[in-house]
């Protein structure tokens, strides 16, 4: 699966799409593939603060639990409620099934994130292919 160029990426395998002052956050295809069948998403509540590089929730597959790390600092404005009943959306459409939307408090944080090409190169290095 190609990594959309309009997104920015973290080394912890989250993506973020920014429109105006709002960032939409999800996990990458690589992340969902490593986890396997996802059965549970633990997300923050609307109004919660998230901090760049800090955990804001977790994703659980049958075999493992994985922390979610925020690509940016800000306030949660929306949580994808559909993931409560169908967490497997993260497996089937990782680059559209988002987890939270965040109102950015410092847009300059985006500069440090990876481009799609950088992220793909990073994955290639991680997996040794």
């Amino acid at each position: 699966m190609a990594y959309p160029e309009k997104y920015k990426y973290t080394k912890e395998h989250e993506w973020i799409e920014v429109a105006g002052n709002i960032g939409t956050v999800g996990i990458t295809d690589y992340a969902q593939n490593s986890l396997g069948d996802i059965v549970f998403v633990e997300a923050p509540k609307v109004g919660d603060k998230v901090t760049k590089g800090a955990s804001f929730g977790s994703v659980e597959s049958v075999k493992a639990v994985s922390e979610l790390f925020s690509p940016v600092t800000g306030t949660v404005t929306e949580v994808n409620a559909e993931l409560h009943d169908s967490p497997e959306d993260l497996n089937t459409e990782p680059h559209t099934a988002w987890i939270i939307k965040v109102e950015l408090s410092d847009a300059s944080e985006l500069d440090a994130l990876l481009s799609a090409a950088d992220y793909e190169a990073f994955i290639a290095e991680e997996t040794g292919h």
Partner: protein
Amino acid sequence: MATSAPAALRKTALNAVHRRSGAKMVDFGGWDMPVEYSGLIAEHMAVRTGVGLFDVSHMGDIQLRGPESLAAVQQFSMNDASKLQVGQAQYSAMLYPNGTFVDDVIVHKLSDNDYLIVINAGTREKDYQWIRTQAQKFHCHVSDYSDYYTQLAIQGPRAAETLAKLTNVDLSTVKNYWFTYGTVCGLPNTLIARTGYTGEDGFEIYVPSDEATSERVWNEVLEAGKEFGIIPCGLGARNTLRLESAMALYGHEISETINVFEAGLGRYAKLEKGPFTGSEALEKINAEGGPQRKLVGLEMIERGIARDGYPVLDASGVKIGEVTSGSPSPFLKKNIALAYVPVELAQMDGEVAVEIRGNAVKARIVPTPFYRRPKKQA
């Protein structure tokens, strides 16, 4: 600081096949094994509702031969091998003198002076040495045949129909926990055992471990099972299947720090057969009123998945035990776990909590196995 390079992972004869099929591979007790192919849940469900195929060649096969082979088996195996008939298999365990586990094993009686002991992959070398030492004073010969066999597990309600297409053996004559020899995929004298580790009906077959033969049999089984929806299954599904069936896993429910009674496997320890390694300790534990802690089944009441090693808490938040295995149950669609708790707190339907990343999440003590396969209609 100097660090030693990691030892090379061992591979089964089907390693290239797994990799070519796109399986996700993991280091399992020093073996490069497939954890999943198409997806853990799909593989799990195939075994519960149809049939699945596992490569379990990493398991060890130790043979004891000679006039005192039964006596040797009786020394290191807690179950009573004298009750076995030729062609019968028996679940058992090997114990340390203090009553804790060297490993669990399956003892097969091949003939009057010939036994095959199937042991776990991660403990293979330790188990082999243990058996050799235990058998030393008996007139018998101990051989490790592990590398001679590719062992395939065909598991699920449609397993018999699948295997029937590939063998001349009338499988209805092979009862659960019995085995026979027959031609499978054109290979004569293949050992066919009606055993497995999934809680379903199923067979484990032993074929020569050369790559060409192993791959041919693997493919023929997949072809034969096609109409029943067969898929190759990995260690991920193997683990969730055995957990639903509450079967012990070495290093989790059983280990060198857990004794037989704690693990709830006392019914397999035949103290009346006479002394064996560990029997004295078990008698002492019995005399002193039994074990202090007990393995129980947990079902999560609140949302959350208990994982291996998570603390179990009582109502006041005090740690009383630990989860040994925990997972979402793909078939029951509940979050289940096995855990050790003090005997006095192990009442059925009792409420405890599991500490999941800092939160006490409510769970209920429930009977095991979590899943039991439906009885076959006559």
